[in-house]
């Protein structure tokens, strides 16, 4: 009998099985691959919503693989935070799968089967990182996720190969540091289960090995999530991947790495360790501020839309990590950070899909070539404007809500210089998005012969773009009227955050 307690494992397994099904059925007929992929991700999405509902009404789900009890066997533990991440990632994953149908037919006509096989493996890895409660299992899933994203980035060939290789080298260093951290923890505790580790570690916080392990985790995951000084792989990898993979990379993959960081910092090492023994969160705040400003400034200098969006992702990682860094010193805890994970996924997903739509229609990469697109692709550019306004932070969009919450958090923590930095970065965002909108709508007169002949993208690509564009504002209103607040409170109380120290 199927019960919701089994869903965390099934979400991972269904995706893995569908990868092989696509490979076999795709060999018979290429057309199947896309539909199987969409159906699987849709099924997973529905299951993830049921899991979220169950977690909020009944409580944390613990699933023991093979019936082995936790310290010995692998445990999948799904609490409010996992469930929230699971819904977010599968939602964007579903829209990307729908969007990819036409786009992949156009960009990778002969490689559709292998594309969807690896896409399903990517979803497997992402879901696995999110649901697992075992730290070594998390390493394995992080690597499944990373290796499949290396392959997907490289799928367009040419310059993407170099970008993918740089990401591979950087990402492997990050994963090795993570593995080393696990080794250190195992050598002092002899356990790999996260809950068990948090209990066994509490008398050992003064131990140098434990502290070194924490540093290895931070550095390793910072590479994976492209935190400021370690972001060098990101712009090329995000810019030259196929559009839907750029959307996944930017909206989900770095966010899932952030999730892994939050999980390790607060579930394995607890709040007490971070506050008393290794007060690293102040440094993270400052690094995030630099990332916000640096990413925005470099985004201004780009002429290529996708590269501009990639640098904007570096800046947005700054927003998320600022939320994480401030979480220990305010009453809001992780709410701003988790909020921006969803908000960023929606906004950046929409923007990358629009950028992909221009490439699909007329191979337009440079912002200067966008003259007159506002008239020729009205719906696509409308969605772009919605998402760009959300990035800038127009009320009541998602970007506005994040900035509002972050500013309140900064005020509570008495860090007014962070408030100034948020305003400066907002001004920079206005500048670089206005430039694109100017080319699309206003600069049409000077040389009509330069305008390209294009029309609207196919419906299956337009629907995800419009859904995400509209959601930029709908989700903002949902946040403002506090509907998801019980979820956020559940996450904060889980980690003992949200109460003034």
């Amino acid at each position: 009998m199927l019960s919701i307690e089994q869903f965390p494992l099934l979400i991972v397994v269904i995706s893995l099985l569908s990868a092989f099904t696509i490979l076999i059925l795709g060999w018979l007929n290429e057309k199947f691959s896309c539909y199987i992929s969409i159906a699987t991700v849709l099924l997973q999405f529905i299951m993830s919503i049921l899991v979220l509902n169950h977690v909020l009404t009944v409580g944390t789900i613990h699933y023991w693989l093979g019936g082995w009890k936790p310290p010995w066997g692998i445990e999948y533990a799904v609490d409010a935070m996992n469930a929230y991440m699971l819904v977010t990632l599968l939602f964007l994953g579903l829209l990307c799968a729908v969007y990819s149908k036409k786009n992949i037919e156009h960009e990778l006509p002969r490689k559709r089967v292998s594309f969807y096989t690896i896409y399903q493996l990517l979803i497997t890895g992402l879901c696995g990182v999110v649901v697992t409660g075992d730290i070594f299992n998390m390493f394995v899933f992080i690597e499944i996720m990373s290796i499949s994203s290396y392959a997907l980035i490289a799928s367009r060939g040419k310059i993407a190969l170099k970008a993918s290789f740089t990401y591979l080298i950087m990402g492997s260093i990050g994963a090795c540091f993570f593995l080393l951290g696990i080794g250190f923890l195992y050598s002092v505790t002899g356990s790999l289960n996260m809950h068990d580790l948090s209990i066994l570690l509490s008398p050992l916080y003064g131990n140098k090995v434990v502290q070194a392990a924490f540093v290895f985790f931070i550095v390793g995951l910072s590479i994976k999530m492209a935190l400021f000084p370690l972001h060098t792989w990101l712009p090329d990898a995000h810019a030259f991947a196929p559009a839907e993979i750029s959307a996944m990379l930017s909206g989900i993959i770095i966010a899932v790495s952030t999730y892994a960081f939050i999980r390790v910092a607060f579930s394995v090492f607890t709040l007490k360790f971070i506050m008393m023994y290794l007060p690293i969160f102040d440094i993270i705040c400052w690094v995030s501020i630099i990332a916000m400003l640096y990413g925005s400034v470099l985004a201004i200098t780009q002429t290529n839309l996708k590269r501009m969006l990639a640098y904007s992702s570096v800046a947005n990682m700054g927003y998320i990590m600022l939320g994480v860094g401030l979480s220990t010193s305010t009453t809001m805890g992780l709410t701003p950070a988790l909020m921006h994970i969803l908000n960023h996924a929606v906004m950046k997903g929409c923007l990358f899909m629009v950028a992909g739509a221009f490439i699909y229609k007329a191979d337009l990469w440079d912002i200067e070539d966008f003259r007159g697109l506002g008239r020729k692709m009205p719906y696509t550019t409308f969605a772009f404007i919605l998402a760009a306004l959300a990035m800038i932070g127009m009320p009541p969009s998602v970007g506005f809500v994040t900035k509002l919450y972050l500013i309140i958090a900064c005020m509570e923590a008495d860090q007014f210089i962070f408030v100034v930095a948020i305003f400066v970065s907002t001004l920079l965002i206005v500048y670089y998005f206005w430039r694109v909108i100017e080319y699309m709508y206003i600069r049409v007169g000077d040389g009509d012969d330069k305008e390209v002949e294009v029309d609207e993208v196919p419906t299956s690509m337009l629907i995800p773009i419009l859904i995400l564009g509209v959601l930029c504002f709908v989700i903002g209103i949902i946040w403002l009227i506090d509907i998801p607040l019980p979820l956020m409170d559940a996450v904060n109380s889980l980690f003992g955050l949200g109460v003034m120290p």
Partner: protein
Amino acid sequence: MIDLILAKYNYWTFIILMLIGFYAMIAKENLIKKVIGLSIFQTAIFLFYISLGDVIGGTAPIVSDETISKGYIYVNPLPHVLILTAIVVAVATLAVALALIIRMYEEYGTIEEEEIVKIERERGITCQ
């Protein structure tokens, strides 16, 4: 001091190997050498795990009535199992890396990083 170094020689070996691999990954221009560096780096961590599981005088962890009655000591098998998984991950990474290098060699006719960057500059970042 010397005693400390000699007693923990397994850790020193792992650190030295890891830094050699790290150096190769950062400093070498040849892409194949970078991948070799990556492999050395990963192998160093595997050695660290394996040496963690070792017990002096320990034997293979096969439990039977005979071995229990004779009072044998066993090495810890869990790090070995973990590393078996990590080796699979490393092999997958290596395969993807080598596949990328082959594709780059077909594309640019070289596997020196500097020359690839130079060719890219000449073409301009047109992405096509």
